[in-house]
């Protein structure tokens, strides 16, 4: 969406030619990414990659996607400067990219609409998806309702409980929600179960993967569909402040909202990129989701990346107060951005995130998702470090309505 009224271009979608960081033919970002999956799934992954490669340069596809983004998702989303919140940030300016204002209340809708259109091109009638916080599940159920697709959502039983409102929303939208009761009963187990469904029903079903992790081509496709966040924000920052931001901040679980806002800025060397993972109860407690900051290189869910694992490669359960960041893996492009030094990753504890959650509500009248609150807390820290000359762009990736149960408990409301 380069200009008002014009359609999304192929370059907006994939950033073709803007930077040289697309994965190679094996889906590798440096040593990261690739495909570590049962052979049975390879033809389906090849099919998705091939249909996407055609679609992303097809004017008709771009027109359809653009139309849905504008008339259904509510794009472009606005920027909001938050001076009262920023008083706690050492005088730095803080500007929010308002993905919370999209239809369904989080950035997930961007990827979902793109992949739902791909599902039609694949000729498939059924979509499955995993969900942690429930936002990807709600977005998928929404797109399935819109396009008349059968929809099954896998969600950890623990997450079903802490995000009960989203379970109800998915059901209302006509999706079947399957609580996953094995393993840690959170996002990673929901992904395992979704893969089991996919390998069994691959002829009829598209796995509408919700983040920039997983086997090739998912990290690339999900990134491209989320990329609109940064494309818009970059232009809007120039309009608002006359300059690019000093830094861009985003929360990182699997990493789709972060890649979505980072990607358009990767070529702007002067712009710092900061990702904030969930430090849970703190690094030393062992109860965290610090995949990039405290994990090691391994393979999880089909991709080589940073993983929380023990010395023999068993996945270690993650912890975060926010279901959407409670994941022991991360997208391979983030692993690559970390090792190349282009982006920097930090941890934010549950308590820091909840303080930022409450601060934004009281100072600006915006209730953020707890996931996004990790980026807000990070921006407060970063602002104090960078000082009053800095302008910080934060991806407010979702709204906090779904988190009221957690907030009531945490704040004794």
């Amino acid at each position, binding site marked *: 969406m380069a200009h008002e009224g014009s359609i999304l271009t192929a370059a907006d979608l994939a950033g073709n030619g803007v930077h040289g960081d697309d994965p190679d033919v094996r889906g590798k970002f440096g040593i990261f990414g690739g495909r570590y999956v049962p*052979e*049975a799934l390879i033809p389906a992954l090849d099919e998705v990659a091939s249909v996407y490669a055609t679609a992303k340069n097809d004017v008709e596809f771009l027109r359809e996607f653009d139309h849905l983004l504008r008339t259904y998702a509510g794009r472009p989303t606005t920027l909001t400067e938050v001076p009262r919140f920023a008083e706690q940030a050492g005088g730095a300016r803080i500007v929010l990219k308002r993905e919370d204002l999209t239809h369904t209340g989080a950035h997930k809708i961007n990827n979902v609409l793109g992949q739902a259109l791909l599902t039609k091109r694949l000729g498939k009638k059924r979509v499955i998806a995993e969900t942690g916080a429930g936002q990807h599940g709600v977005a998928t159920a929404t797109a399935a309702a819109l396009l008349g697709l059968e929809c099954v959502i896998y969600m950890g039983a623990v997450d079903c409980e802490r995000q009960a409102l989203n379970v109800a929303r998915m059901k209302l939208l006509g999706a079947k929600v399957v609580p996953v009761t094995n393993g840690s009963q959170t996002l990673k187990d929901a992904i395992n179960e979704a893969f089991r469904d996919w390998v069994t029903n691959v002829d009829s079903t598209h796995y509408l993967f919700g983040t920039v992790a997983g086997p090739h081509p998912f990290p690339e496709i999900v990134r491209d569909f989320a990329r609109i966040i940064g494309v818009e924000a970059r232009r809007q920052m120039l309009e608002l402040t006359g300059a690019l931001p000093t830094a861009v901040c985003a929360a990182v679980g699997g990493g789709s909202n972060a890649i979505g806002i980072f990607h358009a800025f990767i070529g702007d060397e002067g712009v710092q990129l900061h990702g904030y993972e969930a430090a849970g109860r703190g690094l030393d407690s062992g109860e965290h989701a610090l995949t990039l900051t405290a994990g090691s290189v391994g393979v999880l869910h089909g991709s080589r990346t940073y993983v929380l694992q023990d010395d023999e490669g068993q996945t270690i359960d993650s912890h975060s107060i926010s279901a959407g960041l409670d994941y022991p893996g991360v997208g391979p492009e983030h692993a690559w951005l970390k090792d190349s030094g282009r982006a920097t990753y930090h941890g934010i504890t549950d308590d820091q995130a909840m303080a930022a959650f409450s601060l934004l509500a009281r100072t600006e009248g915006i209730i953020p998702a707890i996931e996004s609150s990790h980026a807000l807390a990070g921006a407060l820290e970063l602002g104090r470090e960078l000082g009053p000359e800095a302008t910080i762009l934060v991806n407010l990736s979702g709204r906090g309505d779904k988190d009221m149960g957690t907030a009531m408990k945490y704040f004794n409301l």
Partner: protein
Amino acid sequence: MTTLQTVFAKAKADNRAALVGYLPAGFPSKDGAIAAATALVEAGCDVIEIGLPYSDPLMDGPTIQDAVHRSLLNGTRIADVMRTVEGVAATGAATLVMTYWNPIDRYGAERFARELADAGGAGTITPDLTPEESEPWRAASAAAGIDTVFLVAPSSTEARIKAVVDCCTGFVYAASLMGVTGARETVNVAAEDLVKRTRAHTDLPVCVGLGVGTGAQASHVAAYADGVIVGSAFIRRILDAPDEAAGYASIAELAREMAQGVRSRA
């Protein structure tokens, strides 16, 4: 150590298919896994696959997930897997490790291959290692003198089958159906076609797994395959048995039925 080559040559000479049994290490207990596998060998299994329990078994159905989960709760480590292989290989069966890739990757490919060879292991089956990513493991296995088995599936194109069999030594594992592990009422008809297509690209033995649970099914699969792989059906019997001893007796009974099956190609 009994090699896969020896096993399949002998089975071929006997005009029968080989019987391959799967059990995870550490299930129903660390010593119990050796006892269970020994019972299978005594009842007629030619090859034993020892599963390396992994926290995220995304190719496995509920039965193996359950067993693997119990094994991990038993504190099973890679040293226990190697000890299990050593105990089972001592029975004279060709003994493989079946594992997802990450535990080997983390442990170190060369170290894992060397220790497996030292324990008397014949090789590995790696269900989530694609040909594109397999080079380090094939090199380490070749250096240690152990076999590498990979999977083909009903969805595999001719080009993929060729790429997979080119990475295999020992045998090729043909997944009979699109799905996860677990016994089924019938073995998918796609299996026979897949074996036929696989043979067009290799002279290696082709074994069929996924969904085989009865002697009659074993007999049917043995008519067109070089080996019949059975896992979940054994594990289900151990899970359902009142105690470990009853479990071993029960799997021995099923293995005898299967051993009959692979000798009476239907």
